[in-house]
């Protein structure tokens, strides 16, 4: 038996198991920014998905609100090493948005107001793994956190959850985004600690 019992280790064991390697738990919601915060009026907000085959699907704010809504509760993992457990969101699953999209594309590039981009395999947006969210913790999503709406892909590091998202471009070839071309990992799996290129 060890000198120090588990009871004195400070954190419940299930927290340790929910925390990817190299991460620490926070209770606030840090804001990291790579540029000025865009302010997007709802009457001019639009979300689009386009395909290499030339299809474009668009939703106004009203059309987006009329889609089936989900309320995912997820853990967030930022590449700067903080994690936040049990965050509550409201939004639309990418499965709903992709329902009528026909394409052979295997890659996706999310793009945002302000010029931010991030890439990921299309399959990482499907099967209940990703949402376009517009409420956090029961309140409308603040601009600092990506409001009016952001992408939420909680199984990857948080830079993949593009703030101020305005569309997703489906692609036949992978097209690295803002941080992925600036030194960060192309995929960004927190459980494999894929922080930087070469990890």
């Amino acid at each position: 038996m060890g000198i120090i019992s588990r009871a004195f280790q400070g954190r419940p064991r299930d927290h340790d198991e929910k925390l990817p390697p190299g991460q620490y738990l926070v209770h606030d919601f840090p804001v990291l920014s790579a540029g000025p915060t865009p302010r997007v009026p709802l009457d001019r907000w639009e979300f689009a998905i386009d395909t290499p085959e030339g299809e474009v699907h668009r939703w106004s704010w009203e059309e987006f609100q009329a889609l089936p809504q989900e309320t995912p509760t997820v853990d967030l993992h930022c590449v700067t090493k903080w994690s936040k457990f049990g965050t509550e969101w409201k939004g639309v699953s990418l499965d709903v948005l992709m329902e009528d999209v026909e394409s052979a594309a295997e890659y996706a590039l999310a793009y945002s107001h302000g010029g931010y981009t991030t890439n990921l395999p299309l399959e990482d947006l499907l099967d209940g793994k990703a949402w376009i969210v517009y409420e956090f913790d029961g309140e409308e999503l603040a601009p600092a956190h990506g409001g009016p709406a952001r992408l939420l892909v909680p199984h990857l590091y948080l830079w993949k959850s593009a703030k101020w998202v305005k569309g997703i471009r489906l692609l036949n070839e992978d097209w690295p985004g803002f941080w992925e071309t600036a030194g960060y990992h192309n995929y960004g799996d927190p459980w494999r600690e894929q922080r930087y290129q070469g990890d």
Partner: protein
Amino acid sequence: MEHLDYQDGNALAGPLSEIFTFDVTVAQGTCAGCGRRGALAELRVYGPEPGLVARCPGCEEVVLTFVRGPKDAWLDLRGSVSLRIPITE
């Protein structure tokens, strides 16, 4: 007055001194977005995490990014046409 969420380009001096032997903030840069010329000290620097993002004060386009990992550093000069570096004899 609205709180500024960036620092001026002098915030680049410390991190980039690890790579360059001269003070980068006095170098004159030309923005690829709008052609504006000025000292790197005039850029608007966001970060430092997940990386430094220096934007043109004229058009807000990204002039350079700097990401410092534990084993490598990445300097991306995506929005910089040129850097004019004063050389002292």
